[in-house]
């Protein structure tokens, strides 16, 4: 048995590949045409390819580089590090960055909240440097930083920043203002135009120095500087002439004020803005009002007129504001509730 195994081992030794392979001299292998290796595949472009989020990290790193360069520039300009007393005076920052979805679309990368917030913190840092450069008067540097940040700002940035601010009242080519006033259930659209002085008034002003005779021979509309008309003798002829106030109109739904609002309280409410501002007879008013009753409609017209006066004569705005005429009265009819007869009125309480 040992002999058989020994013989088998010897035969196996003989059958090994290197022992039986033909001998090939190396010189004959020199000119051998081997199979050409396949052309090497191109390597990935981005250095952050192996993070799996190349687009995002490329953008983030570019932003970090920009921040670093800006920081160096500001340090050379002696603006950084900024002491506390200087930091307190800086105007507030109001950035309006793109939201997560838009930013992901811009970068062509999938954004999670944490990555989005990290990106925003970088943008905010750069925005702070931009503010510093701007306020110190380095316009070019601030513009270059803004150029970088513009890409990431929302398109409707101005609209968002203007929210909450009162839109300025516009005047058309004839000098009319258009304002809206509301009270209770009524809405009033009010057009206000400054009253033009009539051409008859001017000759009166120039001839006020001339003799009374010349003035009295003039047409009925002109009045002398001295004396009330109709009094040629006596003390009243020496009284100063009343100031000629041009007649202005207030039309509500194309109906004169006195006709539309028979109650004095409503008329007074409408005229009150003119009284407070001291501008009675200075403006003509045309209002279209809908909804509600007489109090609501007159209050709506009053608010519209007050807003228009504040636009025409900005100096009157503090007066109107003090008189609370520029505030839209928020009181509305309260709804009726279940279990009550009216909004507040309760049914008679029964003991049992």
């Amino acid at each position, binding site marked *: 048995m040992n002999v058989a195994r020994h013989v088998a081992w010897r035969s196996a030794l003989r059958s090994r590949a290197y022992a039986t392979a033909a001998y090939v001299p190396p010189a004959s292998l020199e000119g051998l045409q081997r199979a050409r290796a396949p052309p*090497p*595949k*191109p*390597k*990935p472009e981005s*250095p*952050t*390819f*192996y*993070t*799996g989020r190349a687009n995002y*990290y490329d953008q983030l*790193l570019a932003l970090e580089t920009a921040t670093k360069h800006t920081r160096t*520039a*500001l340090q*050379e*300009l*002696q*603006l950084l590090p900024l*002491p506390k*007393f*200087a930091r*307190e*005076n800086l105007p507030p920052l109001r950035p309006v960055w793109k939201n997560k979805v838009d930013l992901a679309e811009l970068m062509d990368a999938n954004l999670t909240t944490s990555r989005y917030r990290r990106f925003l913190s970088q943008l905010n840092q750069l925005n702070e440097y931009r503010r510093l450069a701007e*306020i*110190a*008067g*380095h316009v*070019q*540097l601030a513009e*270059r930083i803004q150029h970088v940040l513009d890409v990431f700002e929302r398109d409707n940035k101005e609209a968002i920043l203007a929210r909450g601010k009162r839109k300025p009242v516009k005047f058309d080519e004839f000098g009319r203002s258009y304002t809206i006033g509301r009270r209770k259930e009524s809405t009033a659209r009010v057009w206000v135009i400054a009253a033009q002085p009539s051409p008859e008034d001017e000759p009166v002003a120039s001839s006020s120095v001339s003799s009374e005779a010349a003035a009295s021979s003039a047409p009925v509309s002109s009045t002398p500087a001295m004396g009330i008309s109709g009094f040629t003798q006596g003390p009243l002829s020496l009284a100063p002439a009343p100031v000629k106030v041009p007649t202005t109109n207030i039309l509500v739904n194309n109906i004169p004020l006195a006709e539309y609002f028979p109650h004095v309280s409503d008329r007074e409410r409408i005229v009150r803005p003119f009284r407070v501002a001291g501008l009675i007879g200075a403006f003509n008013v045309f209002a279209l009002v809908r909804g509600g009753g007489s109090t609501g409609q007159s209050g709506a017209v009053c608010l519209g007129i007050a807003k228009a006066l504040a636009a025409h004569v900005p100096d009157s705005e503090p007066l109107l504001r003090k008189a609370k005429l520029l505030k839209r009265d928020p009181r509305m009819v309260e709804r009726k509730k279940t279990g009550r007869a009216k909004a507040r009125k309760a049914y008679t309480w029964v003991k049992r």
Partner: protein
Amino acid sequence: MATSLARSLAASAARSVRRTRLSTSTAAQVRHSSFARVEEKPLETVDDWTNFQLKRAEYQTLIDTFSEYGSTQTRNNTFQPHHSLHRPVAPSDITLSALIASGAHFGHSQKRMNPNFVPYAYGVRAGITIIDLDHTLPLLRRAAQVVRGVAAGGGSVVFVGTRSDLRPAVRLAAERMGKQGYHVGERWLPGTLTNRVQMFGPEVAGDEQVIPDLVVFLNPIPNIHAVRECALEHVPTIGIVDSNVDPRVVMYPIPANDESTRTAELIAGLLSVAGREGVAIYQEEQAKAAARAAKRPPRY
């Protein structure tokens, strides 16, 4: 633009300082001048800000003029903490003292020592394993040779350092190697190499060479899955191994302190400098081959 503005600012400040210096003695000037302190009143107009900047520039100029007298040590010829990042050591210039200065010889506690690490340990002191830098230095130079060789052959090298302090080191290392350098400063996503078709898409995985030719780990233990992926895809790895790690996890271990930022920056810088040399060699070879191909007569 900003630098030229700064220079003009500093120049005007310097001129104003020099003018006053001629009239009074310098000591008196320093005593009476208000350069040292900027007034703490609020800055409203642009002129206020300009004056604020000029005052600071004056103070800086004063310091700079006086720096010429006294100590010869300046910011440029003394060690600054950012030098390990921005002034990498060449592989031929690395010394034991540089390694010790960066704290590469501190290992982990004796209790955590891996038995396979014993050949690279010098000993134990105060319960801490001290790594034998006489072994580290040649292994570091060997790793540098590997990086140079891979880069000279046109291979891609990925630097992996997934801690916040390692991020700038790997980024700069990859930048030094140009088109052949890549970096991973954040988390290594599992399946980057083994699941590349799903991760990068079939087009990219098929058209581009996704498998790198060498991966350098500055902190292999938190990225052990990445190390394993490289082994599965037959990618050679270099890694900084500490005393609690089996050195055989990576192909070319560098026994050193994995917790020290300066050590990691030193090693990453050294390897990237070697890689830069390799890239230069490769580009030279490419240029020569292109020249030869241009000179060769065209085949018919």
